[in-house]
């Protein structure tokens, strides 16, 4: 057990080093990059992906995958926005929207555990299903006119730090505690590492998987709340390709798609790396196609380093 933890910390240090290297390059190229507003900007822009990626990391550690996060976010966004516009009190509307996310996660988890279906296929179905529900509910048009009272929550700052960054920070700590300090965290690792052994050892495999997908749905709904607060509107089309950004961040941060391995700090740094890349390349006026190229190279390099270092240790 001890070696596992030290290995992950070693891996996190590597991810952090990558972030520092990338930042150094941008700082040398652009005067704007290291200014406080820009750094706050990067964190702010990374919050949505970080939120999704935290849930995704837990799912990946438990040996699954959740491709439905974007549409789940869209569905809870439009339902939450509809409640807000209808005059439902803000805390109640937020709770309702988060419940929608958890419910979607429950459906995914139920089909995977009780239905015995593969996570990839179930959540791929969910990807279409939840998107369709959001589109059908809204007729394809965005919901505008969210109350200022609600928007103030996401657009406010605390000591210069945007509220969404604080929210995601708190959620990350919670996820870290769950993963590293509670039995549930050990169950995630065990189920992802070797489901059969876990079952024999008495780990409640079904409940563990269920919990992972419900947390993922919840995090998607939180991301949705942050986004609609910032935009002042909820769109049924939002959240396209969020799942891939989240998987990329988790992978850069050291999560193994085979399950059993992953790190919350690593995922967070992974998100910041992706946000930093986009920010720095825009400041340097690099065109979209090359930005995509850079993102691809970073993901593959991270995987290669992962392979080399794990080879050394193994």
């Amino acid at each position, binding site marked *: 057990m001890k070696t596992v933890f030290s290995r992950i910390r070693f891996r996190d240090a590597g991810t952090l080093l990558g972030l520092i290297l990338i930042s150094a390059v941008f700082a040398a190229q652009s005067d*704007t990059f290291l*200014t406080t*507003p*820009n750094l706050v*900007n990067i964190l*702010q*822009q990374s919050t*949505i*992906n970080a939120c999704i990626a935290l849930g995704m990391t837990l799912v990946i550690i438990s040996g699954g995958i959740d491709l439905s996060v974007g549409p789940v976010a869209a569905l809870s966004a439009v339902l939450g926005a509809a409640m807000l516009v209808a005059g439902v009190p803000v805390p109640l509307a937020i709770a309702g929207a988060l419940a929608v996310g958890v419910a979607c996660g429950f459906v995914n988890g139920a089909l995977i555990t009780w239905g015995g279906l593969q996570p990839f296929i179930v959540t791929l179905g969910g990807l279409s299903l939840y998107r369709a529900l959001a*589109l059908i509910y*809204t*007729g*394809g*048009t*965005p919901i*505008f006119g969210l109350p*200022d009272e609600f928007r103030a929550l996401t*657009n406010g700052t605390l000591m210069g730090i945007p509220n969404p960054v604080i929210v995601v920070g708190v959620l990350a700590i919670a996820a870290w505690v769950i993963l590293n300090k509670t039995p549930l965290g050990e169950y995630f690792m065990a189920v992802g590492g070797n489901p059969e052994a876990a079952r024999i050892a008495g780990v409640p495999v079904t409940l563990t998987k269920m919990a992972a997908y419900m947390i993922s749905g919840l995090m998607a709904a939180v991301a949705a709340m942050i*986004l609609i607060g*910032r*935009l*002042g*509107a*909820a*769109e*049924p*089309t*939002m959240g*396209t*390709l969020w799942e891939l950004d989240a998987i990329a961040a988790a992978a850069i941060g050291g999560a193994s798609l085979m399950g059993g391995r992953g790190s919350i700090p690593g995922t967070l740094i992974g998100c910041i790396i992706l*946000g930093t890349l*986009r*920010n720095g390349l*825009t*400041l340097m*006026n690099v*065109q*979209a*196609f090359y*930005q*995509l190229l850079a993102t691809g190279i970073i993901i593959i390099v991270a995987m290669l380093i992962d392979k080399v270092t794990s080879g050394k240790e193994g």
Partner: protein
Amino acid sequence: MKHILKGALAVSAIALSLTMAQAQDLAPLNSDSEPDRMDWSELDAKFGALPPPAAGTKVGGVSKTLTNEYWRSLGEGYQNVATKLGVELVYQAAQNEGDQLGQLSIAENLISQGFNALLFSPQSDANLVPALEAAKAAGIPVLNVNDAVIPSAEHYVGNVQKGNGVNVANWFITNRPDGGKVAVIEGQPGVYAAGQRTAGFTETINAAGKFEVVASVPANWSREEAFNAAATILQQYPDLIGFYANNDGMALGVVEAVKAAGKAETVAVFGTDGVSDAYAAIRAGDLTGTVDSFPVLTGEIAMEVSLRLMAGQPLPRVVATPQALITKDNVETYATTDMAALRAALLAK
């Protein structure tokens, strides 16, 4: 008097929004029906020649995606004017048309860099709202250029979307005096441009009395879906006389279906946008026509409008950009890459 009042109202609205950093003071923009508007052709007459920009003027453009010819052409238009007048232009785009957050990041990143004006072509009505508000707070004028309409935008430059459909309907009314059955292939449901183009066509052709719109189905801007939809419609209504598609990609799919059904002689097909493939298909006699909205020229006009705004000219909220129905008869006139000649042809129309 009314105009002065309106101007005063607009100024106070801007002042108010600056102090409150809120965008709720302007009525939500509907770019087709906003009364505070003018046509691009009146710019010179009403506000004089383009004022020369100050030295070191920087303008930033944020576009949808460079994988679509339309947005590349729009950037070309920005660049034409920028090069001619010595303005520095940064033109950035998201990775694909679904990348709403990526586009928002790009827009936010540009705001911190000291641009004199920003030209936004948003992915959706809402995704660039935070950037618009941030730019407003920083005192940077923002132009919403075409397609998705930000409800709180103070300045909009673009096409009258409804006019696209009206132009095509008028062709049918003039050239098919006996009337008949027609069908519409729509773009993505819920997208403003798609809805307005369809409404313009349907309302105009229904008002003529002799036509019947027998089908109006979405094909989500996809050539393949348009092909399938058109094939089905042709089977169901063998006496159909024409299709109107909300964009050229779909129109070209419809053309294939019409040819496959052996009805190229009797069924007229129209698209919208005026992409190069559509021009080629019109020359070849496959596509009956398209409504070109001249993206390069639109880009030039948007850039010029931003320079006029920087010079403090009190322009109306909406500046409508040119469009024209292109058929075999006039295709060579409008196919020119010489923008001065194109402007002259459009102004003479």
